[in-house]
């Protein structure tokens, strides 16, 4: 028997979902006068439930009588499809495809049982009655707004079924793959069509290995190798052999990352000797550094680009869920204390009719990604305190979603070590068909067919399952009941068990793994990337206590094998051996990837400035209103940035709590005054000119943001995240190596270590245009630098909003002729110009001097200069504090005479705008004595920003703060 309970808003009350859909439809130009009514539905399959019981569930569980009205009937009943108003509306019903995670259904099923009722299956659905739309409009609304084909299906009119699919029993059948006789073309076809995405040399290595064994591989053996050798899991390109050539000549790398970024950290740690404050770098799921005598802190930023392109909500949702598991799986398990999220999208005003086939509207992508991060981060109880959004048309087919998480871990829990014969234990969510081929898929280029090809790579997360796992595992950790832990991410059990057993060996009993539904093959169980699962190694004698603690909190824990000291990976299903591989083949057998990389620097073109009048106020409006600079309050307010109770500097500051803070600060230990400072830096536009300077600028920006709020520059740790195009193209790879060299160089001078990183390559999108020609969009080089700083006493922190009238305004740092890649160039569409560079030694001195001034308490407010230069920074500190300012250009520290345009809008690095009280100016100047700085103006009661140059007395910027703020807030005030 299949019952349905529909929940309608009471007449006259808000129908939020209908309003949302109508809004998006109007925005996309699909329909403007639609009348939409929505309802939430629940399908209950049960042989025992009677009408009275279902009605009781409707009123006591599903509907809120004060605002909602339930409709209860058996599926097929006319009352379930009849339009609420008699307006001839068409009914569209949206359901998740079978097997897609449905957390609400899971919770509801348990809640129904809590009534003492029995139910065999429960599913949710969404219903929309739409009137005033033609057939074509309806299908547009259905396909582009209501349902994403990657995870959902739509029914027009009544439901086409009267029972819920429950999956059928799996019949074991061992699958061998015929490799022996395949030629090169055959191997590559198998690699592509089997979604292995291995290269020819790799396929040949596998072919040879099994030929020597005198047998064919099983499907699970081939899949295991594909997972382990995938770009996503092994980072074979950047950790591989690269022949690099640039203007300085040629250089051979055996392991590019190891010889650049890692090498710098290693050298710094040697330099520091006993004062080395790094704990574990580039080895665990996250990098770990010292915090207090009791605790270390760890930091990891991941990307989840390909899934987010196909299904923005689920992609971002599982992206943040995944990086949180990295923290939980670091050392013996860290407690997540804050999130940071950085996104790259195409401009949200891109017209729908200009979208290539298979590409979602950027506005929808942005909404979906933000909701996905919000719903997971908020439910986990982890404050999202930092982020940024960058817009560029080249992110159209490949939006970027960087999700970061910081963890707090006891000093004595920072390392793990699997012991021989420990049990392999899976904890958390059940294994389903979701996420098959996510790891190998992320090695492939997206195409207009990707959705149908790899829909399985798209998933929805279940945050509360992960929260339960986190809560119980931290308790178990402190009882010392396991020896190692890692997360189940890309590659699922295959990579988690493969990594943990690398040194010892492992035997896995796949039939023991708990599954969401019947019918999974042994291979699906092994490579499924179902969310919310952790893998632990548990000594046999600890298992009973371990299991009891999990059971007490309703968390499933299952033994799926043991780390048998054989040096082999033995996979069994019941009594059948389905896979048997040497660990060495998995981890050392991959043939080296050899790539060539070229970088030829472009000569700096003079930037041709347009004809400009003697008033640049309008240019300032336009830069403030450009998407990269504009207020992101619409996003920030949807994130809980205060949960855990340690919030010190929030993302939005000032008199109206809407000013753009430079970095956020939290106190992870509530009884301590010590704070963690999180910020980031990125500027893809500079990369179009020179990725070396793009990288140093990003590092400088991340450091500036950190130092501006009071972080100690000698205790800042960095992460690198490279998102690039197809690195088999030597120019593309060359621009990446160039950026990695910059990270190495600057890290050494600033004495700022990189502690972890991640790369996502192949971010290119290809499609066929109307005339049938293949078009490819590659993203711009996108290096995100994330900074984790520390502040000894948070009560010394500083924010960017002006605090007083009649204060002195100091500009710290030198302004240079650097408009290349600037936002002034962007709004005027200017090519060329000198890209901002970093003077490393001066940067180190400047950060140290400014930190000294802030620590002495002589800086009332401080803001770094970034996109839009001095003019934008001045506008922001003024409208954030509701205090005006007058600034004189002539006093700005420079090496040469610069025009007002360059003084106002140049984006030179290592610059800060500081507010200082007159009676503290002597102390401030003393602290800054060995770095460039000058008093360039005063704050004033009048709510205006005026920037003049003397002696001419020309007033280049002269306007009311309210107008500046309006220009800045309008574009993304959704």
């Amino acid at each position, binding site marked *: 028997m299949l019952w349905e309970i529909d929940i309608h808003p009471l007449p006259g009350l808000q129908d939020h979902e209908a309003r949302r859909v109508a809004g998006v439809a109007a925005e996309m130009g699909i329909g403007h006068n639609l009348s939409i009514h929505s309802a939430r539905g629940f399908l209950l399959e049960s042989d025992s439930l009677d009408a009275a019981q279902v009605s009781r569930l409707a009123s006591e569980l599903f509907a809120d009588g004060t605002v909602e009205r339930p409709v209860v009937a058996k599926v097929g009943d006319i009352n379930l499809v009849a339009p609420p108003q008699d307006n001839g509306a068409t009914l569209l019903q949206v359901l998740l495809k079978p097997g897609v995670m449905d957390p*609400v259904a899971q919770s509801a099923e348990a809640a129904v049982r809590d009534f003492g009722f029995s139910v065999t299956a429960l599913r949710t659905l969404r219903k929309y009655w739409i009137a005033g739309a033609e057939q074509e409009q309806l299908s547009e609304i259905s396909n582009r707004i209501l349902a994403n084909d990657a995870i959902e299906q739509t029914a027009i009119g009544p439901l086409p079924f009267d029972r819920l699919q429950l999956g059928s029993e799996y019949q074991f059948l061992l699958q061998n793959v015929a490799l022996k006789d395949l030629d090169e073309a055959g191997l590559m076809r198998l690699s592509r069509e089997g979604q292995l995405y291995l290269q020819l040399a790799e396929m040949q290595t596998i072919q040879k290995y099994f030929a020597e064994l005198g047998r064919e591989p099983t499907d699970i053996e081939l899949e295991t190798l594909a997972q382990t050798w995938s770009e996503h899991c092994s980072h074979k390109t950047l950790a591989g052999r690269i022949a690099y050539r640039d203007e300085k000549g040629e250089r051979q790398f055996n392991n590019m990352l190891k010889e650049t970024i890692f090498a710098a950290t290693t050298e710094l740690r040697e330099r520091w000797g006993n004062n080395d404050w790094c704990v574990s770098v580039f080895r665990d799921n996250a990098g770990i550094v010292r915090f207090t005598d009791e605790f270390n802190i760890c930091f990891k930023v991941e990307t989840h680009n390909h899934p987010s392109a196909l299904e923005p909500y689920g992609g971002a949702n599982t992206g943040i869920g995944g990086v949180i598991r990295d923290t939980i799986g670091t050392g013996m398990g860290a407690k997540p204390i804050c999130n940071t999220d950085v996104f790259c999208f195409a401009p949200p005003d891109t017209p729908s009719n200009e979208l290539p086939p298979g590409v979602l509207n950027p506005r929808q992508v942005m909404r979906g990604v933000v909701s996905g991060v919000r719903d997971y981060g*908020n439910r986990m109880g982890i404050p999202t305190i930092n982020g940024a959004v960058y817009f560029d048309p080249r992110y159209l087919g490949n939006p970027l979603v960087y999700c970061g998480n910081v963890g707090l871990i006891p000093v004595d829990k920072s390392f793990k070590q699997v012991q021989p014969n420990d049990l392999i234990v899976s904890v958390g969510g059940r294994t389903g068909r979701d996420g098959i081929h996510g790891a190998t898929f992320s090695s492939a280029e997206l195409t207009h067919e990707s959705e149908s090809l790899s829909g399985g790579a798209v998933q929805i997360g279940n*945050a509360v399952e992960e929260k339960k796992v986190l809560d119980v595992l931290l308790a178990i950790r402190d009882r010392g009941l396991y020896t190692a832990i890692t997360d189940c991410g890309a590659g699922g059990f295959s990579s988690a068990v493969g990594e943990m057993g690398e040194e010892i060996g492992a035997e896995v009993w796949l039939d023991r793994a708990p599954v969401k539904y019947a019918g999974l093959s042994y291979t699906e169980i092994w490579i499924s990337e179902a969310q919310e699962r952790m893998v632990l190694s548990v000594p046999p004698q600890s298992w009973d206590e371990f299991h009891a603690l999990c059971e007490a909190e*309703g968390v499933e824990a299952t033994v799926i094998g043991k780390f048998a000291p054989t040096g082999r990976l033995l996979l069994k299903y019941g009594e059948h051996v389905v896979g048997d591989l040497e660990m060495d083949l998995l981890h050392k057998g991959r043939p080296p990837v050899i790539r060539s990389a070229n970088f030829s620097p472009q000569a700096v073109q003079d930037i041709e400035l347009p004809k400009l009048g003697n008033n640049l106020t309008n240019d300032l409006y336009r830069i403030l209103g450009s998407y990269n600079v504009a207020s992101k309050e619409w996003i920030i307010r949807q994130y*809980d940035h205060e949960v855990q109770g340690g919030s010190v500097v929030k993302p939005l500051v000032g008199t109206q*709590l809407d000013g753009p803070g430079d970095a956020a600060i939290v106190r992870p230990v509530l009884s301590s005054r010590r704070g963690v400072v999180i910020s980031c830096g990125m500027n893809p536009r500079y990369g179009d000119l020179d990725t070396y300077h793009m990288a140093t600028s990003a590092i400088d920006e991340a450091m500036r943001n950190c130092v501006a709020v009071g972080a100690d520059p000698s205790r800042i740790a960095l992460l690198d995240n490279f998102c690039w195009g197809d690195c088999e193209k030597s120019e593309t790879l060359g621009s990446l190596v160039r950026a990695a060299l910059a990270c190495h160089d600057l890290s050494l001078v600033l004495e700022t270590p990189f502690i972890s990183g991640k790369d996502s390559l192949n971010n290119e999108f290809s499609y066929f245009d109307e005339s049938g020609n293949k078009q490819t969009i590659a993203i711009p080089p996108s290096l995100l630098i994330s900074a984790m700083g520390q502040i000894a006493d948070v009560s010394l922190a500083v924010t960017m909003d002006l605090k007083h009238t009649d204060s002195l305004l100091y500009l710290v740092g030198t302004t240079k002729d650097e408009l290349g890649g600037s936002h002034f160039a962007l709004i005027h569409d200017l090519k060329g110009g000198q890209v901002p560079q970093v003077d490393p030694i001066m940067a180190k001195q400047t950060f140290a001097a400014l930190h000294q001034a802030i620590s002495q308490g002589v800086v009332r407010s401080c803001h770094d200069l970034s996109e839009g230069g001095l003019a934008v920074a001045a506008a922001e500190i003024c409208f954030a504090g509701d205090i005006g300012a007058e600034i004189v250009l002539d006093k700005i520290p420079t090496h040469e005479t610069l025009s007002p345009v360059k003084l106002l809008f140049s984006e030179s690095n290592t610059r800060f705008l500081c507010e200082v009280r007159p009676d503290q100016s002597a102390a401030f100047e003393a602290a800054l004595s060995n770095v460039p700085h000058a008093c360039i103006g005063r704050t004033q009661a009048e709510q205006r920003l005026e920037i003049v140059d003397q002696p001419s007395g020309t007033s280049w910027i002269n306007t009311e703060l309210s107008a500046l703020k309006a220009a800045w807030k309008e574009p993304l005030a959704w």
Partner: protein
Amino acid sequence: MTQPRIMILRAPGTNCDVETAHAFQLAGGLPEVFHLNRLLESPELATEYQILCLPGGFSYGDDVAAGRIYGNQIRHHLADAMREFREEGKLILGICNGFQVLIKSGLLDTDDSQGPAASLTWNDSGKFIDRWVSLQTSGDHCVFLQGISSLVLPIAHAEGKFVVRDDEWLNRFEENGQLVLRYADTGEMPSPYNPNGAAADVAGMCDSTGRVFGLMPHPERFVDFTQHPQWTRLSERGEGQGLAMFRNAVRYFS
């Protein structure tokens, strides 16, 4: 002075238990974080405690409706234990999701034969909101608000809009002195002053005894001056305004 023992009840998805325990500790109480399953197994455990606190979070993911599944568990398994707890003159506090649970479990005297006459539902914006609000109290009926006339606190919720079946019930709650905490247009925090569109600006309510109290804002998120969103502009130092509620609860047993 006798230190009351506080049971901080943690369900799957609860996530403000640690900072709430910290606040009670600062106020001089003896908090202990408990998993709901333990209380469901043995409800008598509650008798050992003087204060029961349901902290914020997303119990059961807010699936179906915020606080609904947890609230039903109380109705189905803990009704007697809760009634005794209240009749013994003890205190119950629900913060944010805890308030959603209290109102849906009937512990705030909002039910009649037709079911609950008051609830918390989706914000007018249809979205989760994190922002600071100005609040004013009314009457001296509620133990937790003694001596507090106004304060600022953060809200962080998606389903925090207070709704009542009809005006008759609104008046009844008013006359019973249950509507003790309201969003107020004092200009201390940026507008809108009532961000979720709550009926009669209600941010928190108590039961008829004044000893059971639920509120959407988070007092545990303002127990130290550095948690104020504008502390770098202000001269005040020391404790935050939210701590007074926890002190009141602890002092009640001294």
